[in-house]
């Protein structure tokens, strides 16, 4: 599932390692003097050198990108990027140069809906996967991992063909509407969401849902009213990962959407392609749009850093 699933594949199985531990992700333990000596993996000078070099490698391109976004178009094209000629004009005019606002709204609708559906579907799947022993349960979980490694380019053409086929057979408009793209992203979010939720749901005591069942809830009711609220942290993480599938994808959106439903990624991709073909190098505005497209994701990651990183990394810890 191409780049969209970078995060998807990354996290698979087995989050919260210590079953029964309720703090998720686990906090780092505070260390004593001996421990901080033990934490010193590299000599201090080397450690500092690595930090400085990595920060330079990360921050110079980032800073340059920000600087370009505040530089007039023609200066960027000519390579005259300095602190001398800064202007916020790009951030104003880019909205009328390219349909970015429309792309942003479409992305929010598509990624938001698909992520919410994805989490709902995964939550329903996680319940029987954690609460009941049945034949093929482990096989099901393994299949979810395997599915994530199927490349997106394998699915794109037949999906397009299937949606077109439905379109002509039932004469319902499909390609270009929200429906196929939401359905696709929703499905791509399911494997990771299910794994994250299964890992978390295992730590939720069964007494909780059994109490709800005794009180007369149906199984679905127990899931929705009792387990869901307790699982909120994991649900948020699963939602964010599923949301990023839609925010970051180019492959499927480039084929399934049209000018009215195109996502931000596609609006930006077309903007960049057109600005080059048209001979109008609006690089400054291109960079300001790039900053605006990246900022929400970067900020979300930094806010939810502890949770997302844990979901991503601990998700693939093996024995």
């Amino acid at each position: 599932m191409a780049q969209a699933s970078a995060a998807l594949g990354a996290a698979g199985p087995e989050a919260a390692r210590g079953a029964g531990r309720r703090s998720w992700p686990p906090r780092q333990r505070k260390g004593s003097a001996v421990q901080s000596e033990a934490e010193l993996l590299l000599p201090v000078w080397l450690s500092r050198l690595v930090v400085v070099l990595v920060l330079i490698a990360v921050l110079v391109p980032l800073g340059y990108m920000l600087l370009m976004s505040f530089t007039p178009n023609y200066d960027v094209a000519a390579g005259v990027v300095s602190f001398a000629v800064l202007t916020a004009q790009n951030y104003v005019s880019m909205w009328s140069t390219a349909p970015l606002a429309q792309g942003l709204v479409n992305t929010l609708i598509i990624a938001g809906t698909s992520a919410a559906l994805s989490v709902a579907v995964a939550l329903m799947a996680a319940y029987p996967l954690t609460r009941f022993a049945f034949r093929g349960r482990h096989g099901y979980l393994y299949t979810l991992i395997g599915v994530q490694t199927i490349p997106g380019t394998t699915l794109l053409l037949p999906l397009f063909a299937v949606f077109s086929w439905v379109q002509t057979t039932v004469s319902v408009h499909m390609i270009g509407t929200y429906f196929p793209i939401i359905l696709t992203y929703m499905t791509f979010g399911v494997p990771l969401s299910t794994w994250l939720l299964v890992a978390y749901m295992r730590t939720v005591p069964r007494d909780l849902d059994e109490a709800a069942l005794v009180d007369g809830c149906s199984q679905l009711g127990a899931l929705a009213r009792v387990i869901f609220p307790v699982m909120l942290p994991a649900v948020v993480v699963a939602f964010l990962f599923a949301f990023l599938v839609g925010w970051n994808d180019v492959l499927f959106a480039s084929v399934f959407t049209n000018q009215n439903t195109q996502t931000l990624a596609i609006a930006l991709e077309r903007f960049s392609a057109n600005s080059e073909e048209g001979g109008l190098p609006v690089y400054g505005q291109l960079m300001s749009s790039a900053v605006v497209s990246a900022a929400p994701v970067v900020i979300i990651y930094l806010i939810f850093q502890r949770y997302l990183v844990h979901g991503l990394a601990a998700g693939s810890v093996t024995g």
Partner: protein
Amino acid sequence: MTAPVKAPPGPLAKSYTAARPGEGPAVGSWWAQATRKWRDRPLWMLIPATAALVIIVLVPTAITVWLSLLNVNVHTLHEWLGAPFYGLQNFVNAFTQPSTLGVTLGWSIFVSFAFSLLTTLVITPIGMLAAFSVHRRFRGRGIVRAIYLIPYTIPTFVTALTARVVFLNGSGLVDKILGGLGITNGQTYWLIGPHAYWAMQLTEIWATWPFIYLMTLAGLQAIPKEHYEASALDGASKAQRIRHVIIPELSGVLKLAMLLSTIFHFGNFTLAFVMFGSPPPPGAEVLPIAAYYNAFTFFNFGDAAAIAVVTMVILMVPAYIYMRSTRLAGGLN
């Protein structure tokens, strides 16, 4: 919010919920048994996820495999699944005849392998060193860790777009730095021609090393403190400790991280698609790009399906290792 009452409260409710699989009495009509099973063992909750995965992933995968054996082109597209059977001819064509892009399938496989393996090879030491460097506590560590994360969090299409401007011939940052240092004359065409591969390679390295960093960090945190302490008390040097304690403890996580990282790089469509003009230069003709252009620009559906199938088959090896290495939690039982 009141729960819908399905069973009357009291002792009766107890008997409803106590019915665990196999324990409940097999009484009543088959219909009563079926509904009780439906209620007590709601395996039907798996239906939405299963249906979505079957319709959106498994069926299309099967269709691609079938299409790769058919002679599907613009003329036979209207009868696509019933197009003339072609055997392995699509694969032969893809391997022997250059596509409209001017490259063969063999070339794309080569580029994809080089791209994914080289990326993993380069980012692994970077990511490990970065993780080691922030394992020690120091003032501002939180900020450094946050900054380390940023390249990985930026959406690939934004990274690619920025790379497109940073690698501009003459006026881009890369040419200005290289020209300023006197390494080149500052006039390199990075986005077309033979240098394109390296521009793409460098961008991927910049954007993805934090994945290894994150996995290493997670691995480091999972090492019991006693192991660090024991080696510190034994008087092991730092180099010895890294070699004999840390690396062995990390090897599981690292192997998995390298495997996953290679799978992602192999499937990276967005970077090459957004970073270069259309059509992309030969150095950027990775497998996903080849499949995409064959299908949606040149309408060689058979070739596209063949390329997609080859991609999938290649990825089956690491995917299988990944699935095997994934430890299903013991607590699941």
